[in-house]
């Protein structure tokens, strides 16, 4: 019996391992041979290890959804401990006298951990079943029900047979078997097994032995099936996700790479060769958990865009076309690879994205959806000249006028004419310490000019020596870049960088998070190093340095403030606290809306959406205003001209203009400056 079981075990394990590694081989072949997109990988080892410890071992990113997160973390830790058990199980099963882990305290403690975690895993499985099929947590619905139930079944069986074998051991059934698992572990180190043993009448003799071998067989087969099944299912993430975190890129998430138009031949992502190997790791790591989709503003307001589907669809194409390419030979790409846009990924979905980064922020395995979406937009715009009609008009304007709207560029600085501001296009007087980058929206949009004027008022009050570029300032290119028109974006950036260098600008303050992100991150990639500060940070500094004083609010009980996070300030640049600190220096009557800070709901304007029509479902901005209404806010404070346009419009259209106003943080501060 012993002999036979050794051989069967070895054969089963080898077969499972062969299938496991063959699948892995083919998957990694795809990832290493098909992609042509190059990426930067300069991240330091230390940082990689930090990220891996935080996000894999400690399961850091999972806790953004607390209940599901805790469950997954426990499951993960349970499995890590269980791996030790399984290794011992197979080692002793194949070579009965072999001690993989020498007897002693370590082994005892390991088995104690296993004994406790196995129970937690069983409870977890029960909880997962409850969430999926009883409570019906929306983000799981409609996704791979069979696969999920099969995996849960395997896991549960593995744990149940573990306990059953443990109970039989305590009954003394396996005492005579040399390779029996757990022999030698003190009974006190398997307390849960002990508890179960106390529930059942003892069993012994040949019927006990038969039962032992049956359970032993089920446990072994279960493990073998699990091993073989992993790489073909969404549980590939068990292998891919830790690797994906360890191999994180050097660039910030959602940072859109540059295109070298002289060197590169293919622009954007048309088929699966146009992604990077790292993107493939992203596809393989996706667990289909749906956190991305259920935080996506487009999805939440009834659009068909689902970031999970984008990742999963691309993965499916890779899994389908990869093997074909492997058989036909890598040179056959042109024949075998088919465009991913249209089918399975619709153009409409690509244009629905606001590039808000909520998906990226929520994804537990650090998948970057935004970069892929913009890459596919690039394919449409740069190769086929395809974009929504409004977007094409925006491009023409940016090209002609250096602004997304039709505006005479010579009037760009007109709003500041009577404010005693150094307008560089007129004065050419480079005697200033800091440049105030106004941006298109605050330069031309009537409502937003008030933001610009407030910023001027604050800077002047604090005695800051600043200047604006006036008609020499052009759109930073953000709306072009995020809609995929990298060519136009680079032209605008090049012109602006030339202007900034000519005026020897080293420090910039801006009131627009989109300009802020472009100047700070996109321009940096193009070689421009400047100190770029958003006005929320700057004003906060001025207050803490005592350069400006604010009046405390008097009518505190009548007014209620809330703050709407801008995606490009918050998730993109991690500025969450400064605006809140500023508001709280004036009033304590502040309440957060639901979905705030890193979970903040987009206003709907990013990714060039400010200039596109939003005809499907509810308007994102309206959903946001409902949230503001729920906390009875009288003033929604913003820190972004895009948000200002969207929310101010929503407020009017929804008939809330009587009771609610939108105020930029600069207006909030400028109207409360203490004059002394």
């Amino acid at each position, binding site marked *: 019996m012993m002999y036979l079981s050794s051989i069967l075990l070895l054969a089963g394990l080898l077969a499972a391992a062969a299938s496991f590694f063959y699948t892995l081989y083919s998957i990694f072949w795809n990832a290493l041979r098909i992609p042509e997109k190059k990426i930067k990988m300069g991240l330091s080892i230390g940082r990689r290890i930090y990220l891996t410890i935080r996000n894999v071992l400690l399961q850091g990113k999972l806790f953004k959804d607390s209940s599901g997160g805790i469950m997954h973390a426990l499951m993960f830790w349970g499995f890590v401990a269980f791996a030790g058990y399984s290794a011992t199980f197979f080692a002793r099963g194949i070579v009965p006298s072999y001690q993989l882990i020498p007897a002693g305290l370590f082994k005892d403690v390991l088995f104690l951990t296993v004994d406790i975690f196995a129970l937690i895993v069983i409870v977890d499985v029960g909880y997962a079943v409850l969430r999926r099929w009883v409570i019906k947590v929306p983000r799981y619905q409609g996704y791979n029900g069979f696969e999920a139930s099969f995996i849960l079944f395997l896991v549960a069986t593995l744990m149940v047979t573990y306990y059953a074998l443990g109970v039989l051991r305590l009954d003394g059934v396996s005492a005579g078997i040399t390779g029996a698992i757990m022999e030698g572990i003190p009974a006190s180190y398997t307390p849960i097994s002990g508890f179960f043993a106390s529930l059942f009448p003892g069993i012994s003799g040949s019927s006990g032995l038969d039962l032992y071998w049956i359970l032993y067989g089920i446990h072994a087969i279960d493990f073998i099936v699990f091993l073989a099944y992993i790489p073909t299912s969404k549980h590939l993430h068990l292998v891919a996700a830790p690797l994906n975190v360890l191999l994180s890129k050097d660039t910030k998430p959602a940072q859109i790479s540059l295109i070298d138009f002289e060197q590169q031949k293919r622009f954007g992502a048309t088929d699966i060769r146009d992604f990077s190997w790292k993107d493939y790791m992203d596809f393989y790591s996706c667990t289909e958990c749906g956190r991305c989709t259920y935080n996506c503003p487009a999805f939440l307001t009834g659009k068909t865009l689902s970031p999970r589907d984008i990742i999963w669809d691309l993965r499916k194409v890779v899994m389908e076309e990869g093997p074909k390419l492997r058989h036909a030979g890598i040179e056959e790409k042109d024949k075998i690879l088919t465009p991913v846009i249209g089918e399975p990924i619709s153009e409409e979905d690509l244009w629905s994205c606001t590039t808000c980064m909520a998906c990226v922020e929520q994804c537990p395995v650090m998948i970057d959806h935004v970069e892929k979406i913009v890459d596919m937009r690039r394919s449409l715009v740069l190769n086929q*000249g395809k974009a929504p009609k409004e977007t094409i008009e925006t491009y023409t304007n940016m090209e002609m006028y250096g602004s997304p709207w039709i505006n005479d560029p010579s009037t760009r600085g007109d709003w500041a004419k009577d404010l005693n501001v150094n307008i560089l296009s007129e004065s050419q007087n480079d005697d200033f310490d800091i440049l105030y980058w106004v941006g298109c929206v605050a330069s031309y949009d009537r409502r937003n000019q008030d933001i610009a004027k407030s910023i001027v008022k604050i800077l002047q009050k604090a005695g800051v020596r600043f200047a604006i570029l006036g008609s020499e300032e052009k759109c930073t290119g953000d709306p072009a870049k995020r809609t995929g028109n990298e060519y136009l974006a680079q032209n605008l950036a090049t012109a602006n960088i030339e202007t900034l260098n000519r005026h020897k600008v080293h420090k910039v303050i801006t009131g627009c998070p989109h300009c802020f992100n472009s100047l700070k991150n996109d321009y940096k990639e193009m070689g421009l190093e400047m100190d770029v500060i958003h006005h929320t940070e700057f004003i906060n500094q001025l207050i803490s340095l005592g350069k400006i004083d604010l009046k405390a609010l008097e009518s505190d009980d009548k007014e209620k403030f809330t703050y709407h996070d801008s995606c490009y300030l918050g998730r993109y640049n991690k500025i969450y606290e400064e605006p809140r600190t500023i508001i709280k220096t004036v009033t304590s009557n502040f309440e957060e809306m639901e979905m705030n800070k890193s979970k903040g709901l987009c206003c709907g304007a990013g990714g060039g959406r400010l200039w596109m029509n939003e005809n499907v479902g509810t308007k994102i901005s309206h959903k946001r205003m409902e949230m503001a209404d729920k906390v009875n806010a009288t003033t929604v404070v913003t820190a972004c001209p895009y948000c200002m346009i969207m929310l101010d419009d929503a407020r009017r259209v929804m008939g809330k203009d009587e009771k609610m106003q939108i105020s930029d943080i600069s207006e909030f501060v400028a109207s409360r400056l203490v004059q002394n």
Partner: protein
Amino acid sequence: MPLNIIVLIKVIPDLEQIKANASTGEVQTDRIPLRLETLSENAIEAAVQLREKHGGKVFGLIFGKQESAPLMKKAYAMGVDEGTVLTGYGENNPMHTAEVLCQKIRTMQFDLIISGNQSADTYTGLLPGIISSKLNINLLSNALTLSIDQATITVRSSLDRKIQNLSSQLPAIVSVTQETNQPRLPPVMQIMAAGRKQIVTEAAQVADTANVKRISNKAPKSERRKQLFEKTDEGIVAIVKAIKEEIR
């Protein structure tokens, strides 16, 4: 049947940026960026679509000034295969423009000429008709759709309140409207290829007969009240009140 299509392209100063001297009313067009007239873009798009369907070549013709030449690049990027810029444009004079263009066209092999039905800087709308008569070919005006079968062109022509089908033997001249199509955004490959393409410039061979005289082209005087309604929420009511007072 592969087609030789000539598309007539007009370069104009960007009208959004034209300013009038406040005291003299004189219109300042110097140092204003130039652009392709939007209807010329519709014409290019129509020509390129026909070429994509039937094969052949699209030839762009600009009658303008030396400064207009770089604008041919945009036409190339949009799909024009070859182009010539005729220089020597002075004032708006459709007879003269037609004669210059026809002289060039007579030296060329063509099946079809496409142009915008007018242009935003002068709005005469005369050019397609004059060319039609000078070259003695049919004009199919205000075409919403264009289709070619053998050597016959058929268009859906938009009249004021009516749409009618017109067809003619080739060669012919067709004028298009803004509704005809949505001019394409040039793909980057084509923009870059356009940058490397040659632009031929030739001096126009016909002297301006100066049979059109400009009497005046001054901006009407407008006196601004400069009233600013700061509170946007009260806007409409306040503005209505102000207007009522004004017209009383």
